[in-house]
């Protein structure tokens, strides 16, 4: 039989992705959402082949377009925005005008999914809520994203990732016990994780609609999504105790912590089973400990004082090992070990490039950029990148002509009446300076233009 890894290399061949089928082809998504939470849910559908039409306000656009790390732009765009909103059609409509709403209603007739993350109640007030959209298209799947949900006494509270981290209890769990410092999870995890949960809910609804023909309303609260990641509620309910902060350790694993190595680097190490624990003891030359009463049973070893004793042993041991050595020892002796990896390493690790975890993408407008790959690789209907973020209103003409069948004259008229519009001269909204939109076929109604 063929070697397993030769077989899987063919199965997941990264160069064959563009020729494979798309699971969500033909699904059309209207994405009213902004910042990260809603846009992430929509983006994932786009990664798997759905047509995602992102609607923004002319001249102003999504709040997150100009919000970049330390105010540093890349080719007049926000480098992290490209990962948040790839594969989308960027159109703008001025919601103050009835004509814009008519445009949206026309799109809703042919849409399968609507996503919004305004403050609860806002979409309904503007005539864009589920009650209105489902009248136009009863089969619509409508996802409302918010911090605390669409009903309940806190429904009108505004919020972002941070507030969900605070209200769910997540923020209170990060940091060292006995200090007055707490840390929020980095990189807006409280938006990205609920965004992925939102995509999962939509896909379940699509599966259901394929069976029954029925659409539905989905209410996802990012605080509830974060609470789903905690076993702490049940821990409290069963023991009457609070775990609180655990510093750099994992109290559910033996000897688990982040340690400093001989070469001043950091590694994480843990034992989740008795055999992993015995592997670690053997590697340290401390096999006799396994016969001690306090370490015979996995549960005894997890007792705080016993576990602390083991972590101290490992701390001393690792002062004599480099990070690379520890990881190799972990593999050979059968316990988990990994080096703490930073942005630069993640971007430049060759195995991540080979795997498609980090993708060096060549974009028609922006050139080369490294982007995060999918967090799950699918062998038959893989995620793919077609294009990255685009200037505000870039796809207006293309979408109105191709999807709504409008004539160029009608579109020019909408532009003149300011129903649709494009970007102001601000980074994050405008194209790179070297880029001439007059020569861009997509921008010009999708037709060939002379260069």
């Amino acid at each position, binding site marked *: 039989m063929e070697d397993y890894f030769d077989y899987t290399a063919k199965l997941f061949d990264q160069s064959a992705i563009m020729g494979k*089928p798309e699971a969500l082809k033909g699904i059309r998504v209207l994405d009213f959402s902004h910042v990260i939470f809603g846009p992430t849910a929509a983006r994932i559908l786009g990664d798997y082949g759905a047509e995602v039409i992102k609607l923004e306000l002319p001249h102003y656009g999504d709040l997150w377009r100009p919000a970049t790390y330390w105010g540093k732009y890349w080719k007049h765009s926000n480098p992290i925005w490209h990962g948040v909103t790839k594969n989308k059609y960027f159109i703008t409509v001025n919601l103050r005008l009835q004509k814009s709403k008519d445009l949206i209603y026309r799109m809703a007739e042919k849409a399968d999914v609507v996503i919004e993350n305004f403050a609860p109640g806002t979409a309904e007030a503007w005539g864009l809520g589920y009650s209105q959209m489902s009248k136009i298209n009863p089969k619509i799947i409508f996802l409302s994203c918010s911090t605390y949900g669409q009903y309940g006494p806190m429904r009108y509270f505004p919020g*972002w990732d941070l507030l969900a981290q605070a209200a769910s209890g997540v923020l209170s769990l990060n940091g060292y016990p006995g200090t007055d410092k707490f840390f929020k999870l980095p990189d807006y995890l409280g938006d990205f994780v609920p965004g992925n949960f939102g995509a999962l809910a939509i896909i379940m609804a699509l599966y259901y609609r394929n069976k029954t023909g029925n659409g539905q309303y989905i209410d996802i609260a990012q605080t509830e999504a974060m609470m789903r990641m905690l*076993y702490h509620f049940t821990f409290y309910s069963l023991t009457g105790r609070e775990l609180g902060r655990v510093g750099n350790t994992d109290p559910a694993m033996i000897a688990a912590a982040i340690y400093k190595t001989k070469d001043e680097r950091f590694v*994480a190490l*843990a034992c989740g089973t008795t055999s992993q624990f015995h592997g670690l003891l053997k590697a340290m030359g401390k096999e006799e400990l396994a016969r001690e009463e306090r370490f015979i049973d996995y549960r005894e070893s997890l007792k705080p004082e016993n576990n602390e004793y083991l972590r101290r042993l490992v701390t001393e041991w690792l002062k004599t090992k480099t990070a690379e050595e520890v990881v190799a020892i972990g593999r050979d002796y059968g316990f988990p070990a990994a080096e703490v990896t930073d942005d630069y390493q993640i971007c430049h690790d060759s195995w991540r490039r080979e795997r498609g975890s980090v993708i060096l993408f060549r974009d028609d407008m922006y050139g080369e950029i490294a982007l995060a790959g999918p*967090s799950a690789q699918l062998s038959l209907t893989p995620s793919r990148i077609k294009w990255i973020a685009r200037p505000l209103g870039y796809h207006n003409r293309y979408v109105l002509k191709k999807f709504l069948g409008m004539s160029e004259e009608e579109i020019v008229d909408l532009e003149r009446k300011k129903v649709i519009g494009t970007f102001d001269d601000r980074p994050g909204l405008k194209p790179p300076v070297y880029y001439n939109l007059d020569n861009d076929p997509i921008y010009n109604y999708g037709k060939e233009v002379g260069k």
Partner: protein
Amino acid sequence: MTTETKEAIYTRYGRPSELARALAQIMDPEGKPEVLEDVLVLDASYANFAGIIAASFFAEFGAEVVKIEPPTGDPARHMTPEGEEVGEVGIPFIVEGRNKRYMTLDLINSPTDRETFKKLARRAAIVIETFPAGKMDSWGIGYRQLKEENPGLIYIAITPYGQYTKKARDFSQMPDSDITAQAGSGLPANMGDIPEAGEPYNWPLKAGLWAAWYISGLSAALGGAIALVHRQNTGEGQMIDVASMDAYANMVTIPPAIGFTWEKARPRIGVLDFILYPYGHWHCKDGMVAIAAPRDHDFRALLKILDLWEIEDDWRHSSDRIPDILEQATHLHKIIQEKTVNFNADELVAKALNYSKKSARSKWRGGGVPIVMRVMTPVTALANKQWHIRKAFQEVEDPALGKKFILNTSFVKMSGSPPRIKWVATEIGKDNDYIRQKYLAEK
């Protein structure tokens, strides 16, 4: 603060309206159909919660999820904080015991049991496993063999480095854990205190929850759900490969873009945020508050609330406040801290809400929406009325454990085909007969 005033703040803006009442009603799962009622999931994950968690999401949506484990049980049963167990079962395993069935098959040692697994897999839509890459294949029950008899099978494998590439081959024997997956996928590198805080506080900091295992589990379930849609349309199955070393970086997408455009890693900046300020948490009279007021008009509103208007001139633009100059941002952080300690958390929450409400109606206030929330612990969050009304928690009983306890319910509310918790079970081999009769009985 008394409980009455507290209640007033969290309910004041949400007098139960017709719409809210109607919503609460249509989101009730009682009597509604389940999306995955015709889907059989075999969860053969071993000593790995990512697989167990992925299986839970399918179970919440109505799939028949069978946990396959050796007669001695999955070692994941004992992964529990400080060794706390009920009976012989660890608490995280109880939490993920929702809607599960249990069958004993010793895939590691018994060729007969592997044969039984193979038969069962003919009836399954999804198989989940977390053994070293290639292990199931060497036992004759990998994707390549199972798909011969069941071409529609969706086969989900979760490991640290995945199923392909040279790295995956070289490190196939490396076991998975949450803390190593957090470390290897970029989370701790971006969390922790500033260099001046001293060791170990300025070290990379681990998230105090199973961030990587939940993210890997969610990624696996999401991939599986997309594959289910394709299977529904075409009948074709596929293999899904989740590498837990991707977990954090690929879900938040930010680390590769920073590594590429900056050509360096970010330093750790403690409690501050890289993009927004104020966007963090401060001590107050009775605990802590999280405050987000990053836009200029939000910030001005916050200054009014905190009685700090005199500093407005120095910090007017968001570019003045972002922590590219760390000392400067830390200085502003202290100024705000001196004010927040004068208030109770709920007072600040109420002030911010009142301000936002007024500013929404006044063109003179410039639309500032400063947002404040009390920093809750899991225990205070449990007591929050919002979650009672939304049924975010549910009391359940595992008859085998003989205990009642609180469980977080599913992550979403849906009107048509909502997820739900029907039961919690943890008993080894509980459904051996049921499964054999239902799926393996000779016709």
